[in-house]
């Protein structure tokens, strides 16, 4: 790892350009194509099957099997479904993608299902006549009135910026200005880069994506602080690129990311579809956080330190030169004074 860090520690400018490019690309892509929302926040075509309570309780699975078979025939993909039983009726609502072609297929499926259920519930010959089933089918289109309110995202953005300022202040007081800037900037990079990558990859997101970006800001600054602590312990040594690389909290960051990553993979593998996408987004954010904490933070710190040291050196050099110049001036003046005095003495 140290070999990789030794190479990347001098590449801060390149990394900053890449990160800024990703951010700009994500903004442009989102502005053109919009946010890729999860199914629950998208417009949809729906098909509702209403079933009387007794049949709902006894044989809902049979109803659903008939529906699933018809959807397969029509080439329809169910994005998700909701089941509800209230009062005398229960209903199953199936959600499909929006669009005219899907709508046409849903209407066809509705017609076929209505015929099939009518045949199955026929009082004379129906397969389900003994169970007194009453089933109706309807198709509709749902258009979202609001998806993610803009002010949710805006306030999340303000929260991240405020946190970056507070992290900067804390780290600056504890470890110095350069550490403060590094910690503050790392918080911003963690949150914004995570958001950029999630938006660029067009992962389906809900409001819970904001949680991931907020936590990413915190995690990145924690990683930065781990490194700043180690650098502070070596503050009496001269800061070099190698020292910065050695002080990077590689073990701690890698341990955290491996353990957390495995836990996320477990959650994503065992749990169902919606939590899976959330776990994937969190995993992507984890990779970004580790990149910023492990690779970008030491590079940024080293760049700032170099510039600060150079400035201090230049100021010292300027001070030295100025002192020398003043000395030469004073010596010249003294010499001129001596010459003038000698001339005066000669004249006398």
């Amino acid at each position, binding site marked *: 790892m140290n070999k990789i860090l030794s190479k990347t520690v001098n590449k801060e400018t390149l990394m900053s350009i890449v990160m800024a490019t990703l951010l700009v690309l994500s903004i442009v892509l989102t502005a053109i194509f919009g946010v890729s929302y999860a199914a629950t*926040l998208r417009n949809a075509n729906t098909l*509702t099957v209403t079933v009387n309570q007794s049949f709902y309780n006894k044989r809902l699975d049979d109803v659903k099997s008939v529906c699933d078979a018809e959807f397969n025939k029509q080439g329809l993909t169910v994005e*998700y479904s*909701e*089941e*509800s039983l*209230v*009062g005398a009726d229960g209903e199953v609502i199936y959600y499909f993608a929006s669009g005219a072609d899907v709508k046409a297929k849903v209407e066809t499926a509705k017609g076929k299902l209505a015929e099939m259920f009518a045949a199955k519930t026929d009082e004379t010959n129906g397969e389900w006549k003994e169970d007194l089933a009453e089933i109706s089918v*309807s*198709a*509709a*289109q*749902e*258009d*979202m*009135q*609001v998806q993610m*309110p803009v002010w*949710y995202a805006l*306030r999340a953005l*303000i*929260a*991240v910026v*405020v*946190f970056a300022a507070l*992290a900067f202040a*804390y*780290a600056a007081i504890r470890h110095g200005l350069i550490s403060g800037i590094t910690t503050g900037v790392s*918080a911003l990079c963690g949150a914004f880069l995570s958001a950029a990558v999630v938006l660029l990859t067009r992962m389906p997101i*809900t*409001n*819970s994506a*904001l*949680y*991931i970006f*907020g*936590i990413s800001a*915190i*995690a990145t*600054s*924690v990683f930065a*602080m*781990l490194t700043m*602590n180690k650098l502070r312990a070596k503050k009496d040594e001269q800061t070099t690129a190698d020292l910065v690389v050695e002080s990077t909290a590689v073990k*701690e960051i890698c*341990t*955290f990311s491996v*353990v*957390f990553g*495995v*836990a*996320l993979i477990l*959650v994503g*593998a*065992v*749990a*169902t579809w*919606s*939590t899976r996408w*959330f776990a994937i987004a969190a995993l992507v954010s984890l990779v970004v956080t580790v990149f910023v904490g492990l690779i970008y933070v030491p590079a940024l710190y080293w760049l700032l330190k170099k510039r600060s040291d150079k400035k201090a050196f230049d100021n010292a050099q300027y001070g030295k030169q100025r002192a020398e110049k003043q000395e030469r001036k004073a010596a010249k003046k003294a010499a001129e004074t001596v010459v003038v005095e000698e001339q005066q003495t000669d004249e006398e």
Partner: protein
Amino acid sequence: MGKKKSVVLMVLLTILIVAMSVITLIPFPVSGTQSFNPTVLQYDLGADLGGGYYVYYYPEGVKTETEYEADKPTDEIEAEKYAADYVKNGSLYLSKESKYNLVNNKTGEVDDAFQAQFAKAAQVIADRFEARGYSDYRVAVVDDYALRIELPASDATVNETLSTYHYTGKVTLTKGTSAAATELTELQEDGAKITDYISGFTVANNYKWSYLKINLTQAGKDLMQGLKNELATADSASSSSTALYLQIGDAKLTGIYQDNITDNDIRVMFVESNAQLVKTYEVLLNSALHNSFEFDFEVGQVCTFEAVYGENVLTLLYIALGVAMLAIIVLAIVLMGGYGVTGAYASMTYLVVVATFFAFITGNAAFEITLGSVLIFLVGFVLMNVLQYHIYHAIKTEFSLGKTVESSVKGGYKKTLWGIVDIYAVALLGALSLLIGAAGLSTLAWQAVICIVTAALCNLLWARAINYMLLSASKNKYKYFRFVREDDDDE
């Protein structure tokens, strides 16, 4: 600490942690049909984990396909006449009756004015749910002329919210008995507006109760002082008492009695007046105050739905979390030996404390558990264990310098103390900053504060105390830490 004392303390502590863990995690039968619900089954869950409620709002004169088919006459001729009385739009049937003004009878198309009014009503209602600040909610227009609203299961005021948020019409004050109240004469004057007297509505708190504060303008204060003595007191209120009624259109929301009126405002409490309920009315009334128009909706039955992607999502998530946590604890014991056992105690304490706080902190808002809560719980848990490893590494480094085990432990803790404080301080600043976020992010911020503070206390104090006791009780301090003494090497 003596060995015997340490052993006794550790046994007691172990029994306590095991007991708390069982109460937190394991459901078990109590008697017959009753069973004990552990803490983890008592959460207010967001829609992604716990499902929620939904309802339809239909404009008056609009029928669903199911209702239309149910009301359809069997006679063919009557059925034709029946069909001619409606315009079909998707799964909705709009009545052509002139009293509803839905259809332009000249063109046979949906009336433009109705379309515009519906669009406005849909926007106002959507804005109300947005202002209410749910972490997860859904407002959708169904086939152009109906609304479908979904709210998370954590909303304890769902009935009030869904049954009132369709109210349109102007905010007004009426005076009289509950059966016969008329609008105040001051509000009936030409050009009079309610905003001349009421500037807005806010939620205020009085100890553990919340109440709705009706903010008055100067004219409103004067009006209320003039009316106050005509009203009955709340204690003596009956169906024949004179009271003021706050209404939206024809719908009475609450009565106002003499004791509700102060010099500057009106203060109204509701039955079970918690902050969520009062917030519901605050948003509704502020919306109606500034958006006054007439549009009548009929409300369908409130239905429940399971977690969107399956009723087992919570169980599966708990299993996944359990496996992950167990793996981390086992890994810690494998890597760090006895010190890993310290980590195990700290981990179980973290689990019990955080799970309990998540369940029983409700305060004035639903402490909604969402996927974000799971994430921040995991972050705190992993961070705590990683820092335990960091401390172990520092102790090991001290030991490699030739110090005794006790000195190494002391030195290791000393060297890592401020670093760990820094990390938790920055994390806590992050959690507090997230309070600026809206809705679910604000709730997540409080959950993050709980996780971070608990993890910090576990790392800095609790694990240290447990380590002290375990170390005192251990037979071989080197084996405890899995250290190798130099003389062992020589052997």
